[in-house]
């Protein structure tokens, strides 16, 4: 692969990239190869890195890089069309054709592939994307590694046959309709020294792997939670009720209104500043109910825990929320 080489710093910058190639790599999975318009070099990256696709003013989605880091001129991602998606994956599938321009930030890496002599790699579904780059890195390093790759059906598993062709018996393909759930007990039952476990996939798989690895040395397990929550203002702005536990009041939040403004209208003082979910000033403790988080601050873990929310932009994912206000 050759391209004009222009040295780039590995800082996070927004780039205008072009969809150089688009192809379907499995059922519902489209692969995009992104390049600069002028074909110049892109920032370098390592296995586990992701980029942000800026798909609209309020629509930014993260996708793991799954290509070859040595190819400095193009980045490859694979995107699953999420069932019921109203945001990111729908925009990628529906709008990004070959030749389309797209804003890209990154790469950043929160899922670093640490050096080790042995690796157990586990991927579920589209979670194969960062794991595939890790398999290549492990192979390059001459490490002892295995990849267990599960999915609904063989046809839904992106890159399954490529991986098998390239690495042979190191790759174990386990479509669920043929083999059932992954046999994590035999894979992770015994903690092994000098071995790191990397897993990416849907939440139930991550939880199951975390449970099996409880007895492993600290730091042996690395997981990445993909598919950040997607939302769409029009589709999910249903009205709901908010109980203000401290003030002993209940307010209705209509569609198109924020919790912040509804609470203020009721005469209850709430601290706020940016009113767009970026500054964190209006963070409020959630006592009961499920939150539809729309801020840019909380981590996936904090969102899942649902103990706190930014009332300027986030809403209820249920009929009634109880807040410490």
């Amino acid at each position, binding site marked *: 692969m050759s391209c004009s080489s222009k040295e780039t*710093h590995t800082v*996070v910058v927004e780039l205008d990239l072009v969809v150089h190639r688009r192809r379907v790599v499995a059922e519902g999975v489209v692969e995009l190869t992104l390049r600069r318009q002028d074909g110049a070099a892109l920032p370098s990256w390592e296995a586990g890195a992701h980029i942000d696709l800026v798909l609209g003013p309020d629509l930014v989605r993260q996708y793991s890089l799954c290509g070859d880091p040595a190819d400095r001129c193009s980045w490859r991602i694979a995107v699953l069309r999420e069932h019921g998606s109203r945001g990111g994956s729908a925009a990628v599938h529906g709008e990004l054709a070959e030749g389309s321009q797209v804003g890209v*930030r990154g790469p950043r890496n929160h899922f670093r592939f640490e050096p080790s002599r042995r690796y157990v790699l586990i991927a579920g579904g589209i979670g194969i994307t960062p794991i595939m780059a890790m398999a290549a890195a492990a192979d390059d390093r001459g490490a002892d590694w295995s990849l267990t790759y599960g999915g609904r059906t063989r046809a839904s598993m992106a890159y399954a046959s490529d991986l098998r062709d390239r690495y042979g018996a190191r790759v174990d393909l386990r479509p669920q309709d043929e083999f059932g759930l992954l046999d994590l007990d035999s894979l992770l039952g015994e903690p092994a020294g000098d071995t790191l476990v990397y897993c990416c996939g849907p939440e139930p798989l991550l939880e199951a792997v975390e449970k099996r690895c409880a007895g492993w040395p600290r730091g042996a397990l690395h997981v990445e939670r993909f598919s950040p929550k997607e939302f769409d203002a029009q589709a999910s702005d249903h009205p709901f009720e908010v109980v203000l536990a401290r003030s002993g009041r209940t307010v209705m939040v209509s569609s198109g209104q924020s919790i912040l403004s509804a609470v203020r209208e009721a005469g209850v003082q709430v601290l706020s500043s940016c009113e767009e979910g970026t*500054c964190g000033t209006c963070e409020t403790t959630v006592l009961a109910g499920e939150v539809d988080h729309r801020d840019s601050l909380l981590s996936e873990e*904090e969102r899942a825990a649902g103990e706190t929310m930014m009332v300027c932009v986030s809403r209820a994912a249920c009929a009634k929320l109880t807040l410490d206000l």
Partner: protein
Amino acid sequence: MMPTLDDDPFDDAILTDPYEFQTRLREAGPVVHLPKLGVYAMGRYDEVRAALTDWESFVSSRGVGLSDFAKKKPWRPPSLLLENDPPSHTGFRAVMNDVISPRTMRTLRAQFAKDADELAEELVRRRRFDAVTDLAEVYPLKVFPDAVGLRPDGRENLLPYGALAFNAFGPDNAHARRAFAAAEPVLEWIAESCRREALSGTGFGASIWAAADRGEITPEQAPVLVRSLLTAGVDTTVYGIGNTMYAIGTHADQWADLRDNPGRAKFAFDEALRFESPVQTFFRTAPADVEIAGTIVPAGSKVLLFLGSANRDWRRWGEDAGTFRIDRDAGGHVAFGMGVHQCVGQPVARLEAEMVLSALARRVARVELDGDPVPKLNNSLKGWASIPVRVTPA
């Protein structure tokens, strides 16, 4: 025809009491020419807020002071945050948002509360103290450098350094020159303190260096981001806490409200930021002709945004905009800026103020001035050098 005002907003009379001038500025028009400085100025809420959020028409990369970086080399390498624009700004800001996140704030709360309680306990025992030199300068200089992970020696250097940075945004006047002279000996300490080896293994500083390890920034950029914390994180909070104490010390009924409801400390601070904003002004530069309310500001112009004036604009805050009222909904004030450059340390400042004010409110029945407050003049900051107070324990 654009209105013109013949004032120099950086002269001592206006720095001491900016509000009469700011009223004239707001009422003169949405954008006003200041021929003495050769700049344009805005003092109304809507226009100031719009300019702060429109980073493309009003850029920061040519400096947020009077000096245009396109024409004159800045006194230090530009900040990667404050003196930068997207897209370059975006990644650095993302790193800082991770460093000062809701998670890190939760871990700081207990220590900030403990330090606030200890200080309040001692001040109440003394009955008479200076709300600036014994409180507003003491508390932030304890908890903030601890949170950054600075070494214990030399922290007094942070105040002259901050004073310099904020004076340097103004013209080359006596304040700027005095600040340079005072800060010159501490510049080396500041540079030294941003190195990885000088910082503790935990804290904001170590988190910034960890971002360099992850490849999100380069090792050359890490100390420049640490420097941003030291520039922007101390004086602003010192002035903010001092201004809150001044507002409360001159409004007895407001202290009574706070004493009855210590949980309102965060609202008292927010209202004080609106009422007497620590950072009064920032400049932007128009890279191209830009139309403001029907008038063209020509390409290359420096535009002076009066945050403190926007925060007192009756168009936004009502007829009592000039009144300090802690039951007011002050949300949306621009004391921390707005948009992509909105103060990244905002949650730290808010936590500091909430902890120290509520610690006092739980112990103090009454606060009164115990002598004349002494203003502290700075080209960008509004606040006090001394506020003698007497407190009556609860």
